[in-house]
C-alpha cells in the first residue's frame, strides 16, 4: 500500500510538472512565432492579392443543415468576401427545413447539368444549382441527401475546380480580408498544404448584414469563459505548433487546404465527429508516406467569428463531441504514436495530444477521486495539499494573464477599458467554475463514446440577428 501511494503521488507529480512545462514552452514559442508573424507582415498590403491575376483560385465550401433562418444573410456575407478568383459552394445537406427553398428564389437559382465526378464517394447529389443573375455568378448550391458535415464537405471537394478549398461553417462570420490573409502562406512557400486561422467568439458583438461591425465581450459569463479559453488555445498553443510544423488541428469553422492533397488523402472521414482534426492528420500522414515535404501553417489574425454556446447544456454537447472526436482521430491514427517515420508528428505532436489533451481529463478526475480517498482515510497532508492547490491555481492564472497580454499586444480586439477588468475576473473564476465542468463534459464524452454514441448532438444556435446595431 505504501508503494502504491508513493507511485501514485510520484506519477501525478511528474504528470503535473510535464504538462505545466509543456504549456509554458508552447506559450513562449507561440509568442516568438507571433512576434515574427507580426513583424513579417508589418509591410504587407493584402490588397495586392485582391488585384493580382496571379492569386490562386479558392472554393469556399460551406455545408448547411437546417439553416433556413439565416442562410440568405450568411451566403450574402460569403459572397462579399474580398477576393477575386473564388467561388462559394453551399451544400444543402438534406435539410428538413426551408434552407433550399429560401435559397432558390433569393439568388435566382436554376438547376444545371453539372458533371459531378464522385472522386470521393458521398451520398447522392440531387442537383447542382447556379444563379441566372450575374451578380451571383460565383455561387454554386448543391442539394444532396443528408450525410453529415464530413459528407457535405466531400461533395464540396468533388465539385470544386479551384486549387485551394476553404472549408467553413456557413453560420460563421468571416472577416472580409480573411482569404487574402489565409492564402499568403501558400504563396510564400510551395509546400504548404493547409492553413488555419483563429476563431473568435462573436456573442454580443454588433453584426450588420452579416458583417462584424463592433467587437464586444460577451455579456454572459459562459461565453466569456470561452473567449479566454479560445485566446489561450489559439494564441498560446497553435502558434507554437505551427512554428514546429507539428499542428494537428485546423478549426472546422475555417481552414484552407490544397484541394488535390485533400482529395488524394481521401477527403473527410464520415466515421468521426472530429473530422476537421482527422483530415489534417491524414493529410500530414499522406505527405509523410509519400516522402513529400510539407507545412501546415497558422494565421494568428482573428479571421472567423462564431457563436459560442451560451447555455451549459449546449456547451456540454459541444465538448462531448470534441472529446469523442479527439479520441476517434487518435485511435484511427494510432500508428503514428512514437513512430519516427512520421517525424515530429509521430514523436511529439501525437504523444502531446494523447497525454496532455486526451488523457488530462482522466488524470484530473483520478486526482479528484484519489484526493477524496485520502480525505476519507484521513491521510491528506493539508499544508502540502493547500500549497499544491495554490500552485496549480496560480499557474492557471499565470497562463490566462499571459494569453490576455498576448492578445492585448497583438490584435487588441477588446478595446473597451472595462474589458480588461472583466477578463481578469474571468481568469480568476475560470479554474474554479468553468474548468471542472469542461473536464466533466470531456469525461462524459468518452463514456458516451464507449457506449457507441456517434451523433453530433443538437447545437441550437440563437443566430447573430439580435445583435444588430441600432
Amino acid at each position, binding site marked *: 500500500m505504501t*508503494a502504491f501511494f508513493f507511485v501514485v503521488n510520484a506519477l501525478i507529480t511528474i504528470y503535473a510538472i510535464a504538462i505545466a512545462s509543456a504549456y509554458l514552452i508552447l506559450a513562449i514559442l507561440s509568442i516568438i512565432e507571433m512576434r515574427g508573424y507580426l513583424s513579417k507582415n508589418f*509591410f504587407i498590403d493584402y490588397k*495586392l492579392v485582391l488585384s493580382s491575376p*496571379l492569386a490562386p483560385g479558392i472554393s469556399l465550401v460551406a455545408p448547411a443543415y437546417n439553416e433556413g433562418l439565416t442562410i440568405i444573410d450568411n451566403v450574402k456575407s460569403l459572397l462579399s468576401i474580398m477576393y477575386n478568383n473564388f467561388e462559394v459552394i453551399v451544400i444543402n445537406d438534406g435539410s428538413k427545413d426551408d434552407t433550399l427553398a429560401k435559397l432558390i428564389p433569393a439568388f435566382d437559382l436554376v438547376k444545371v*447539368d*453539372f458533371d459531378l465526378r464522385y472522386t470521393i464517394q458521398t451520398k447522392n447529389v440531387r442537383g447542382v444549382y447556379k444563379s441566372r443573375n450575374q451578380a451571383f455568378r460565383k455561387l454554386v448550391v448543391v442539394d444532396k441527401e443528408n450525410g453529415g458535415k464530413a459528407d457535405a464537405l466531400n461533395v464540396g471537394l468533388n465539385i470544386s475546380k479551384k486549387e485551394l478549398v476553404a472549408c467553413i461553417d456557413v453560420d460563421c462570420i468571416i472577416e472580409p480580408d480573411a482569404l487574402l490573409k489565409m492564402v499568403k502562406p501558400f504563396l510564400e512557400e510551395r509546400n504548404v498544404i493547409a492553413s488555419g486561422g483563429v476563431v473568435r467568439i462573436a456573442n454580443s458583438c454588433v453584426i450588420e448584414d452579416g458583417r462584424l461591425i463592433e467587437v464586444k465581450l460577451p455579456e454572459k459569463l459562459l461565453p466569456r469563459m470561452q473567449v479566454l479559453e479560445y485566446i489561450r488555445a489559439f494564441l498560446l498553443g497553435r502558434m507554437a505548433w505551427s512554428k514546429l510544423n507539428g499542428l494537428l488541428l485546423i478549426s472546422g469553422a475555417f481552414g484552407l487546404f490544397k484541394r488535390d492533397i485533400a482529395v488524394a488523402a481521401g477527403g473527410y472521414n464520415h466515421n468521426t465527429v472530429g473530422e476537421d482534426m482527422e483530415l489534417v492528420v491524414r493529410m500530414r500522414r499522406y505527405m509523410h508516406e509519400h516522402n513529400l515535404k510539407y507545412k501546415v501553417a497558422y494565421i494568428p489574425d482573428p479571421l472567423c467569428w462564431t457563436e459560442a454556446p451560451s447555455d451549459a447544456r449546449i456547451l456540454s454537447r459541444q465538448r462531448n463531441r470534441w472529446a469523442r472526436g479527439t479520441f476517434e482521430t487518435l485511435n484511427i491514427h494510432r500508428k503514428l504514436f512514437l513512430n519516427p517515420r512520421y517525424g515530429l508528428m509521430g514523436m511529439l505532436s501525437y504523444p502531446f495530444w494523447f497525454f496532455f489533451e486526451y488523457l488530462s481529463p482522466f488524470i484530473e478526475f483520478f486526482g479528484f477521486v484519489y484526493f477524496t480517498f485520502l480525505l476519507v482515510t484521513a491521510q491528506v497532508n493539508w499544508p502540502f495539499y493547500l500549497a499544491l492547490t495554490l*500552485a496549480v491555481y496560480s499557474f492557471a492564472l*499565470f497562463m490566462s494573464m499571459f494569453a490576455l497580454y498576448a492578445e*492585448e499586444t497583438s490584435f487588441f480586439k477588446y478595446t473597451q*477599458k472595462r474589458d480588461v477588468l472583466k477578463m481578469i475576473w474571468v481568469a480568476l473564476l475560470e479554474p474554479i467554475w468553468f474548468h471542472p465542468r469542461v473536464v466533466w463534459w470531456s469525461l462524459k464524452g468518452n463514456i458516451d463514446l464507449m457506449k457507441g454514441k456517434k451523433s453530433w448532438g443538437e447545437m441550437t444556435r440563437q443566430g447573430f440577428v439580435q445583435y444588430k446595431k441600432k
Partner: protein
Amino acid sequence: MNPAMAPWNDPSRLETVLDLSIIALLGASLFIFFLFTSRLVKGGRVRRKTKLRERFQNSINVIVELDSSHDAKPAAYQFHYSDLQKDMGRSNLAKQVMVDQLVGLKRNLSGSSANTLIKVYLRLGLDQFSLRKLNSYRSKRKAQGITELSQMEVPSATKRIKSMLRSSNRTVREEALIGLVRLDRDMSLDFLDDYTSRLSSWVVMRIHRQLSFSDKRHLPDFSRWYRHVNADVVLFAIEMTRQFRQINNASKLAELFNDANQRIATLAIEVCGDLHSVEVADHLIQLVKRDWSNDIVSLSLVKSLGKIAQNDLHWQALTDYINHPNYAVKFEAVRALYFSEHESKYLQRWPVPSTPDLDAILRHVKDPLLQS
C-alpha cells in the same frame, strides 16, 4: 500519516511548491500590470500620432500647393519647412510619423505632387533617418528602412539595398528585391542576373504589381532569363512573359518544352496557349504521345492546343485526348472541340459507346451557366 507521504511532508518540498506559486502569482500580476500600462501607453501614443499627423498634413498640403503654383516665394517654403522641422524636433516617433505620412501619400500620387513629397522627405533629412535603419540588428527596422528609401526613390541607397539580397532574413531579402524593382528606373531588373535565392509566388506577385505601374514599352525582354540557373527566376520570366504579353518570345518558350524541370516545361506550354502562339502548335503535337501518361503535362498540352490548334493534325490530337484516362484532360479536350468550329467534324461523329461519359461532359460544357 502514511509513510509513503513522508517525501511530501518534507518542508523543503513544501517551500518549493510555495515558491512556484509565488512566482506564478507574481508573473500573473506583472502581466496584469503590463495590460493596464500597455493600454495607457498605447492610448497616449495613438493620440500623439494623430496630433502629429494633423499638424504635418497641414504643412504638407501647403507645400504641395505652393509647388504646383510655380511662383511661390522661397520664404513661404522656408516657413513651412521650419514648421515641420519644429514639429518633428528630435523625436524619432515624430520622424516616423512624418515618413509614414509621406510614403502613404506618395503611394496615391504621381507626377509633380509625388516629386514634391520626395523633396520634402529629402529636405527634412529623413533619408538619413531611413538609411540609419539599414544598420539596425532588427530585421523589421531594416526592412522598414528599405521600404521607405525605395518608396521615396532615393537612388543613392541602391547599392546598400542590393547588398541585402543576401540577408539571412527572408523579410529583408524580399523587401530588398521589391525595393530594387522600385528604384530601377530603367526597368532592366539587372539584379536578377545573379540572383540565386528563392523567388516565392508572393514576391513574384509583388514584382508584377510594381512592373504594372511602369510603361510596358520599357520592360525588359524576359526571355533573357529563360536559361537562368535559378529555376525560380526562369518561372518568373515565363510568367511575366504571359502577364505582359511578350508574344515575340514564343519560339524561345518552345525551347523550354523539353526542360528537365516539369514546372518550367508545363508553364511554358500554358503560356504559349495563353499568348495564342499558333507557331508553336506543331511543337506541342510532338509532345502529345511522349507525355501521354503524364497527367500534368497532358493537361497543359490540351489547354494550350485548345487555344492554338490550326489544322487537322492539331484537331485530331485534341480528339485523341477524349480517350485520355484523366478526366480533367478529357474535359478540356471536349470543351475545346465544342467551342471550335470543328465540333461537327470531330465531336459529333465521335463513337459514343467508347466514351460513356462524353455525353455528361458535353451537357456540362454546353450549359451556359457553367461557362466561366
